[in-house]
Structures are given as structure tokens and as C-alpha cells.
């Protein structure tokens, strides 16, 4: 269903477009303890790999912009802030950092888990959208049939799992080096990468991922999301997993 400008107007709250979104500072630390000028590294926010309206068949452009430019940006900014003065941890690649959270000082461990997780999850999320949906193709299609009972059952199980996440979280498909797939969920910004398990694909079921267009109707969002899944990209990730080169 197209997101009409009329509907968008209806959805604007008291603060409206000119209030909360446009007047907010460029970098908003939605859940950080204190907004400070964030360092520029070691981690960085890549631009969306497509226009913000590329996923209109499931996700409106405004949601894409806020999600990437505010939510994801906040995770990156907070992560870099937490890593200041932590030379050993700051030198780790994002997946290695997530695998080695136990080595982080306790005072910043939860913050790293939340923000490194948020950075990894959203980085994956943007990559696997921007497609035309439809039935999966290639090797991934075969793996879905073999490991997840076929595309129809998989999609139904994936949506059901996403619906049962209480509060904020993610539904993922993990992949082993041997190419075996499994369906899992995680709360908040946790990721299978924390357990050394690679993520093939996943959907964000935090309310911010769908509230402007779908409000309380998470099930409708989960259903529509398949319209923008990028199976070519997911096949690339699948091949990388089997080659041992898939990271985030």
C-alpha cells in the first residue's frame, strides 16, 4: 500500500515535521546518558546503499531516513564515544568486538553490547533490502528448502518469530560455514555475532522500524517487508559465509 501524503499528515503528532524531526540536532543520542560531541572513529556510518524511498513497497522514506540518520547514527556515535581511551577494544573489527565483550571493562560493557550490536544489526539490515522481494533464488533458495522447510513455511515461521519478540528486538537467519541456516530471535540490539555465529539476514522489530506507517500492526509490517528483500544480495552473503568471508 503506498504511503500517501494524506496519511503521512494524519500521522504527524503534536510536534509534527517541523518540530521533532527537523528542529532536532543533527546527531541525536536517543538513549545515551549525555549528548557530547562524538569522536569520528573508529567506526563509521555508511550511507544507505539506495535512495530513502527505495523500499516504499514496505517502508516509507521518512522511516528510512530517521532510522538510518538518527537511530543508526546514534549507535555509531555512542559506540565511538564508549571506545575513547580503549585502545585495544577500539582496534577490534566490529564482529570481533561483539565476540569479545567479556574483555571490556564492566562499566562500558553493556553500552558496547547495545551500541556495537545496533551498529552491526543495522549495517546488515540496509544491505539485505532494496530488492524486489518475491521468491528466493539460487543457492539460498535450496538452503531454505533444505533447512527451513521451504519458502512459504520459512516466511511464516520468520514472521511468527518476529511477532513473538516482546518489546524491542530482531528476528534473524543465521548461517554456518557449511551453509546451514537457522531461525533465531534476539532482544534489543543483541546479535548472534556475540556468540560467534554469522547472520545471513534479519528484520528489525523495534517499533521505530515500522511505527510511522504501521503503528501497532507489527504483523502487517512483517508481511510487507518481504516485498523489499534483496535476494541477490542475500545470495552474495550466503556465498561469503561458505567462503568464510562474511563478517557483519
Amino acid at each position: 500500500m503506498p504511503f500517501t501524503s494524506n496519511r503521512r499528515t494524519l500521522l504527524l503528532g503534536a510536534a509534527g515535521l517541523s518540530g521533532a524531526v527537523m528542529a532536532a540536532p543533527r546527531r541525536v543520542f536517543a538513549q545515551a546518558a549525555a549528548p557530547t560531541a562524538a569522536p569520528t572513529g573508529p567506526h563509521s556510518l555508511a550511507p544507505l546503499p539506495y535512495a530513502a524511498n527505495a523500499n516504499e513497497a514496505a517502508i516509507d522514506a521518512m522511516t528510512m531516513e530517521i532510522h538510518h540518520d538518527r537511530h543508526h547514527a546514534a549507535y555509531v556515535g555512542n559506540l565511538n564515544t564508549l571506545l575513547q581511551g580503549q585502545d585495544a577494544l577500539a582496534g577490534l573489527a566490529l564482529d570481533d568486538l561483539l565476540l569479545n565483550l567479556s574483555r571490556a571493562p564492566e562499566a562500558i560493557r553493556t553500552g558496547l553490547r547495545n551500541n556495537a550490536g545496533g551498529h552491526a544489526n543495522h549495517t546488515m539490515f540496509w544491505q539485505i533490502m532494496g530488492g524486489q522481494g518475491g521468491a528466493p533464488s539460487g543457492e539460498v533458495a535450496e538452503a531454505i528448502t533444505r533447512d527451513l522447510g521451504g519458502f512459504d513455511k520459512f516466511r511464516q515461521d520468520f514472521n511468527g518469530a518476529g511477532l513473538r519478540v516482546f518489546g524491542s528486538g530482531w528476528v534473524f537467519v543465521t548461517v554456518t560455514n557449511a551453509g546451514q541456516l537457522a531461525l533465531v530471535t534476539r532482544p534489543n540490539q543483541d546479535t548472534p555475532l556475540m556468540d560467534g555465529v554469522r547472520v545471513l539476514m534479519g528484520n528489525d522489530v523495534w517499533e521505530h522500524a515500522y511505527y510511522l506507517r504501521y503503528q501497532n500492526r507489527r504483523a502487517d509490517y512483517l508481511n510487507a517487508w518481504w516485498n523489499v528483500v534483496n535476494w541477490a544480495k542475500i545470495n552474495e552473503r550466503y556465498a561469503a559465509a561458505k567462503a568464510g568471508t562474511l563478517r557483519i
Partner: protein
Amino acid sequence: MAFTLPSLGYSTSALAANGMCQETLELHHGKHHNAYVTALNGLIESKGLAGKSLETIVAEAGKAGADGLPVLNQAGQHFNHVLFWQVMSPTGGGDKLPAKLAAKIDSDLGGLAAFKEAFKQAGVTQFGSGWAWLILKADGKLAVTKTANGANPLSTGEGTPILGADVWEHAYYLDFRNVRPNYLDNFLNKLVAWDVVEELLEKGGLSTGQVA
């Protein structure tokens, strides 16, 4: 008996001038809260809840840990939202607190400004979905705390909530988008019904009267 969705003490448009628009209240009360009530009623028989008060169910589910989560998610959220609707008002906010509440906040929490800052921090740092609370502890002192998802101070055993702010994104996304700190500032400065909070302080917490 069954749990019921209590009506709001004001119209769904009554808080719009105070930063909570009509659509937020319609969805939050009519869809989100209602869904928790429906789901909780669906658990009464299978979980053996019949005859128990909402407050008892919440406390018992909290003590049960992971096994209690399916009940706590729905029962906690029912209790939390019943309280939430009561502690907001179209004439809420401001810095003129009723005398007894003001004195209690001064003595236990270092004054209104310190309380507001602590409450806002609790809400901002509750990662993911959850609630920020002002509670009355067993020792008679006030404290600020936070809980995740559907939990609350009754389920954690920390104390009795007399003020709560919902920090699930559905509570503020239409009005404030990602900017949770502004939602919490607005809640504290324009929405809190301080007279109701004082009443809850004097009564030792909320009795919802809701029974399975």
C-alpha cells in the same frame, strides 16, 4: 471475571496541547493497552489466574523469573498502563507540587530538579522498551528506578510505583520520533498529574481493583 480496559479519565484529544496527540492516545489506549488486556484474559485459564488480583499476578509472575514472563508481559503491561493513564492530566505538569509530595521529594530525592533529572536519566537509559518509575520502597523512602518491557517495581520487588513513564517507542514515536529525552522532559513538565501522584503516595500505591 475478566480484566477490562478502563476508560481514560480524559478525551483522546485532551493531551494534544501538552505534547501527546490524539492519534498517540487512540492507538496507545485503544490498540496497545487493549491488546495486553485481551492477551492477559486469554491466559487466565491456562495459567490458573482465576480469582487473583492484577497486583498479585504481577508480583507472582515476577518471582517466577523466566517461567513467569508470558504472564508478566501482559499483566505487567496492563497494570503499567492503568497507572500511566491516571498519572497524566490535561492540567498536569508545572513545578507547583502538592505540599506533602514536594516535602517527600525534597527529603528523599534532593528536590524536584534532582528528581526530574534522575527520572529522565532512568527513562533515557532504559535500553529498548520499558518504563521509568518513581517508587515508594518498603523502608518508606522514595526512589527512582527503571524496568524493561512489561516488568515493573511490583514484579521486581523493588517497591510500589506512584508514577510511571512508558518509554516503549509507541508511547512517543508519533509525537517525538527518536528523541526520547524530549518526550520525558515533556512528560515531566506538561503531563504529570502531581495531585494524583500525591494521592498514590498517601495510599501506598495503586489498587487497580482488577481481578481475573
